C-alpha cells in the first residue's frame, strides 16, 4: 500500500514513481523484449503467432490474476490449479454437444460455482485461524478429487462458438487474434481497476498490508479474506474455461493442478507481488504470466531442447529474484 504516503509535493518525484511502477514497467518491457526477440528469431512472425501466444497464455494469466488478488489480500491459495481443473471438468461435462447459448450460461454458472466454493474456503480460513497455506494445501487435494469425480477420464467438449470466444476460431487454431487479446486485457484491466479504485478492492490491499491496522480502521477483514478468495476462484474458473476452449476437451489430472499452482506462484512473485501481502498489482502478475508462457516458444525457436529449456527457465526465475533481492537489500542499506 504505497498510495497513503504523507508528505510534500517533493515526494512525488521520479524516484517515488520508479519505486512504485518500476518493477511493473520492467516486467512489461521484459515481455516486449522477449516478443521482439522471438519475432526476429523465427522466419515469419504474423497474426498466427500473435493469436497462438495470446490464447495459449490465457490459462496461466487468469491463474496469475487469481493468485495475485488472494496474495495481495494477505493469503495464498495452493488450490488455484485444482480449481482450474475442476471448472474445466464441470464445464466439459455440461457443455458437451450443447448450443452456444447454453454453453455461455454454463460458463457463467461455473464461474459462480467456483467463486462460491473458493469463498467458502476463505470463510474456513478466517473462522478456523489455520494458516492459508495449510488450508489450501488440503483443498488442493479435495478440489482435485472432486474434479476427478466429475470427469474420471479426459473427455467432454464444448460448442464451436465458445471455442471461438476465447481463441478466435471454432477449431482453436487460427489467425484471428482479437478475441484472445480482448479476453486477455479486458478481465485483467477490469480486475486492476477494481483492486485499485473500488472500496472493496482497496480493503483487500489494506488487509494484506496490515490486518490489525485495517481492522482497527473499520475494515471488515474477514469479509476481505472471503471476497479475495471468491474473486480468485472466479478467475481460476476463467482459466479452466480458457483451457477448455483451447483444447476442446476436458482433463482432470492432479499433476496439471499442482503444476499450474506452482506456476501461478512463480508468476505473481516475478510480477512484483510481495508474498507478505499488500504490495503489487494484478497487471504485473498478468504480464509475468505471459512472460513465463512465452519463454518456452522463444527457447524452442532458439533451438534449445525442452529439457534444457526447463533448466534455463528455472535458472532465469532465480536470477531475476536474486537481482530483486540485491536491489531490495541495497535500498534497505541506503534507507
Amino acid at each position, binding site marked *: 500500500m504505497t498510495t497513503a504516503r504523507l508528505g510534500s509535493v517533493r515526494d512525488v518525484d521520479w524516484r517515488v514513481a520508479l519505486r512504485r511502477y518500476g518493477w511493473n514497467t520492467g516486467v512489461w518491457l521484459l515481455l516486449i523484449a522477449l516478443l521482439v526477440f522471438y519475432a526476429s528469431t523465427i522466419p515469419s512472425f504474423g497474426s498466427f503467432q500473435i493469436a497462438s501466444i495470446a490464447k495459449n497464455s490465457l490459462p496461466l494469466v487468469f491463474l496469475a490474476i487469481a493468485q495475485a488478488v488472494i496474495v495481495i489480500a494477505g493469503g495464498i491459495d495452493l488450490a488455484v490449479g485444482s480449481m482450474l481443473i475442476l471448472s474445466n471438468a464441470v464445464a466439459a461435462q455440461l457443455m458437451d454437444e450443447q448450443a452456444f447459448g447454453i454453453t455461455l450460461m454454463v460458463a457463467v454458472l461455473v464461474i459462480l460455482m467456483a467463486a462460491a466454493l473458493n469463498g467458502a474456503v476463505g470463510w474456513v480460513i478466517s473462522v*478456523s485461524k489455520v*494458516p492459508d497455506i495449510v488450508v489450501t494445501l488440503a483443498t488442493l487435494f479435495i478440489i482435485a478429487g472432486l474434479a476427478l469425480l466429475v470427469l474420471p477420464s479426459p473427455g467432454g467438449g464444448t460448442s464451436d462458438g465458445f471455442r471461438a470466444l476465447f481463441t478466435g476460431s471454432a477449431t482453436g487454431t487460427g489467425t484471428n487474434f482479437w478475441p484472445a487479446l480482448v479476453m486477455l486485457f479486458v478481465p485483467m484491466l477490469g480486475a486492476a481497476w477494481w483492486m485499485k479504485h473500488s472500496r472493496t478492492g482497496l480493503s483487500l490491499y489494506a488487509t494484506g498490508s496490515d490486518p490489525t491496522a485495517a481492522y482497527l480502521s473499520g475494515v471488515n477483514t474477514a469479509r476481505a479474506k472471503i471476497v479475495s478468495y471468491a474473486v480468485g476462484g472466479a478467475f481460476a474458473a476463467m482459466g479452466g474455461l480458457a483451457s477448455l476452449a483451447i483444447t476442446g476437451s476436458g482433463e482432470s489430472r492432479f499433476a496439471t493442478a*499442482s503444476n499450474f499452482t506452482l506456476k501461478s506462484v512463480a508468476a505473481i*512473485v516475478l510480477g512484483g507481488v510481495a508474498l507478505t501481502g499488500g504490495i503489487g498489482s494484478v497487471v504485473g502478475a498478468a504480464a509475468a504470466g505471459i512472460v513465463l508462457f512465452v519463454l518456452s516458444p522463444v527457447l524452442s525457436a532458439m533451438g534449445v531442447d525442452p529439457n534444457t529449456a*526447463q*533448466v534455463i527457465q528455472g535458472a532465469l526465475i532465480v536470477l531475476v*529474484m536474486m537481482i530483486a533481492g540485491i536491489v531490495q537489500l541495497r535500498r534497505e542499506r541506503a534507507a
Partner: protein
Amino acid sequence: MSLESREEMVPDISQPRWTIWLSDHPLVVLGSVLVVLVLVTGVIEPNYLSVSGLRNTVLLAAPLGIMAGAQTILMLTGGIDLSVGMIATAAAYVAANQSPNGALIAITLGLLVGVAAGTVNGIGVGVFQVNPLIMTLAMSSILIGLFTALSFTVLQGSTTVNDFISTLGGGSFLGNRIPYNALVWTGVSLLIVYGLRYTGFGRLLYALGDNPVATRLAGVRSWQVLIVAYALAGLLAALAGILLAGRTGAVDLQLAVNFLLPSVAAAVIGGTSIFGGIGTYSGTVLGALILGVLATMLTFLNAGQAIQQIVYGSIVLGLAWLYARVTGVS
C-alpha cells in the same frame, strides 16, 4: 512446545483444566488420533492389526517421515522446501547409476547430490534473500529438466539399485518383523530431535524463525545458518529418495513427486508452524505415521483415486483445524 510459545506462560483460567493440559501436551492428541486411525483400519480389515500389517505402514511412513524432517527443519526457520521430491528422485537416480560400484559409493554420491542442491537453495535463500517458495520451486524445475535430459544420456538404463540398497529400503529383519528403513528412520529421528533441542544450531533455527531481526542483531550470521539448514534438508531428502528407490526397486522420474505435499502435511499435522519458530520433530514423526495409516486405510477401502484425494485432504484440514483449536497456536 511450551518452550516456544509465549502466550502459554499465563494460564487462561477461563478454560477447563483438561484443555489446558492438552494444549501443553499436543503429542497426546496426535497419539490418540493415530491409535484411533489404527483401530478404525483394523475394523475395516482385521488382518491389518498384525505384525505384517503394521510393518507395511511403517515401511510406507519411513521415507515420508525423513522427508518431512527436512520440511520441519526449514519450516522452523520460516522457510519451506518444494524441491524435496525432485532432490529425492535425483539422488535415487545417481545411486542407481553408481550401484555397480558398490553400495557405499552409490549412497555417498546420492547423498552428495542432495547436499549440493540443498546448498544452492540455501545460498539463494540465505545470501540473495530469494523467497524460499520461489527458490525451491525453481530448483525443482531445474532438477526436472536436468534429470529428464540426463535420463536419455548419462543415466540411461540406471533404473535399478543394488541389493544392499534394496534391503535397506524394503527389507526387514527379526523374522520379517522390523523393516530396516524403520531403523534408519529411528536413527535420523533421534539425531534431529537431539539436534533441535540441545545443540546451538538447533536453537538458532528456532530463533531465526521466531524473530529474524532480533537474531541478526544478536550477532548471528543468519545466512550461514540458512545455508546449513537447506543443505541438511537436501541431505535428508536424498536419504529418503534412496530408501524409496530401495523399496520400489525401480527408479523413474515420478519416484518421489507424490511425496512433496504429504511431507509438508506431515509437518503441519505434527504442529510445526508454517511461519517458523514453533514445532518439534516428534510431532512430525506422529504426523508421518498418521498419514501412513491413512494411506493404508484408503487402500483397504478400495476407494477410487478421487475419493482417496478428497478424504486425504479433508483429514489434513480437519487435523490442522483440531490442532489450532486444541493448542490455540497455529
